[in-house]
């Protein structure tokens, strides 16, 4: 009997999709990865090629426009911007990663406790995150920073990490609630698996893909937060060079019209952020999307 007889009218013909062989690099944000790698490598190995000590103040050559001697010019304190860019990038990138590690760790533990715990605990913890979300994070950062005292690279990472975990925690909680009843979790519990064992061996591998995008985006927002804070004068002090603290001099630069002090660190910052974003989008993009009915 042929299957033809059972074909229903109105059903879409299912097209056999041939597995298209894709080259390894297709669909991956190759350009962003390369640029990001170049910037990271340049920052990591900056001692090898930067021409001057970034904190040395050359009082004869201050506020110079980019020229052959000073590739990116000098700032109003006579420091060489080219050297500062690579040196400062180290600190900006480090803060981005450190803050993300802190906030992801808090988010995973918090979300898992909320997801695994009883109803009342869950409600309480989620209310707490809502209250935390309700204070503009800028104010919150200023307050915590005030408690911690003089800002350093580590304290800034801590502050940004501590204020940036709420949205990831919410996703973790939702995911955990959905898989907490699964047989393998129950089995692990029955065999006496502790909270951290279950979290690490059974829960994390399941929700890691759904928070990956947010984690990468967290790197981005941490770098933005650092530069914004340093720019406003409540982050890193001027002596600690980062892309943000370089921009803190921009008010003077506006008055003297020295565009290179504003544009150059900003362009590095923005290019890094764009690369990180496209990396994040790559994690989010679902492999196959269904066809539009419209």
């Amino acid at each position, binding site marked *: 009997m042929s299957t033809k007889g059972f074909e229903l009218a109105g059903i879409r013909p299912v097209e056999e999709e041939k597995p298209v062989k894709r080259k390894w690099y297709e669909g991956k944000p190759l350009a962003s990865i390369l640029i990001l790698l170049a910037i990271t490598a340049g920052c990591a190995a900056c001692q090898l090629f930067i021409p001057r000590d970034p904190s040395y103040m050359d009082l004869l050559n201050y506020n110079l426009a980019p020229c052959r001697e000073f590739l990116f010019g000098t700032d109003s304190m006579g420091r060489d911007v080219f050297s500062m860019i690579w040196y400062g990038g180290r600190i900006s990138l480090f803060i981005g990663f450190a803050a993300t590690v802190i906030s992801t760790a808090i988010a995973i533990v918090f979300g898992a406790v909320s997801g695994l715990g009883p109803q009342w605990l869950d409600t309480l913890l989620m209310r707490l995150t809502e209250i935390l979300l309700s204070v503009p994070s*800028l104010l919150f950062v200023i307050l915590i920073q*005030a408690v911690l005292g003089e800002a350093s690279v580590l304290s800034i990472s801590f502050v940004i990490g501590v204020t940036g975990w709420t949205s990831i925690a919410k996703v973790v909680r939702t995911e955990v609630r959905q898989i907490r009843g699964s047989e393998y979790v129950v089995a692990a519990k029955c065999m006496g698996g502790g909270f951290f064992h279950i979290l690490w061996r059974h829960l994390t591998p399941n929700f890691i893909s759904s928070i990956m995008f947010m984690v990468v985006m967290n790197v981005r927002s941490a770098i933005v937060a650092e530069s914004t804070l340093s720019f406003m004068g409540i982050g890193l002090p001027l002596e600690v060079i980062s892309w943000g603290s370089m921009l803190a001099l921009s008010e003077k630069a506006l008055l003297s019209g020295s565009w290179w002090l504003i544009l150059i660190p900003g362009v590095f910052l923005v290019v890094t952020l764009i690369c990180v974003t496209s990396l994040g*989008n790559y994690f989010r993009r679902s492999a196959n999307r269904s066809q539009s009915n419209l």
Partner: protein
Amino acid sequence: MKKSSVGYYGKKVLVFFFSIVILSLVVFYVARLAPGDPLVSYYGERAEKMKPQERAWAEKKLGLDAPIYVQYIRWAKNALRGDFGISFKYKRDVLEVIAARAGNTLILGGIGFVLIFGLSLLLGILCAWYEDRLLDRVICKVGTVTSCIPEFWLSLVLILIFAVYLHVLPSSGAYTIGKEEDLGDRIRHLILPMTIVVLNHLWYYAYMIRNKILEEVRADYVLLARAKGLNRRRILFGQCLRNVMPAYLSIMAISVPHVLGGTYIIETVFSYPGIGTLSYESARYQDYNLLMVLCILSGAAVILCNMIAQTINERIDPRIRAKEIMEESRVEYKGI
């Protein structure tokens, strides 16, 4: 139905007040534990040269001598009567100080908010209509890039271009001194900050709406409508958009704090006299009473907006409620 409604909103009101109390307690403690001398913000430079007796007298006068919890109770009692104390820096009633500035922020944030939502809906529809075609791709790319630019840097670049090099727009403030009543002058001062408020958020929400519409377009009823011969425009505007609206409204409600937080930074960059610059000053210079009211105001706005969003989701859009009930029962069943 009526009774459950009362219970529903009653619970919301209770949660609201509870959250505000917790928030005020946290801010009160953190602010007072932070190092820094509130007397400096009241007496200026003089505070550093004060003798111990003078200090003690000043602290007593400002009500800073008691333990923190006593101070909190005192503050809460007065606050319930509508007396929030005086600002240390401005030496006026806190509410007066805020009222003088609130208008500016409301103009900046309010008009910005309306623009963001009108334009993002428009862009979202445009993108969804031309999905994966050139226009959609261009808008997506431009959007991703603009959403990556930190708002303070964008402000700097625009100031550099329009104020420093072209001399067409003012770089700071809300009006030129001596021209407070001149509407044109105010508008000129608003252009740059407003552009940044809008640019900074527009893309994010447009993208959200685009995705919501694209999700909706894949539903089966669209296929049915197509099969019946309705044209694309009527399906999109008459059916899909109506289904997207509740989600859109709740996104709008949730976005209020983001737009608000964005204006804080932009106000500081442009030295625009609004709530943002005021909060920044009060947090930096230990102006406790002012800080408390500002935190509570913005906190209340945020919590209120979240609640509105929740209510929209639960009450207006029955589909979401039904889905949640189904999911919950599934989870509970599995949990046993």
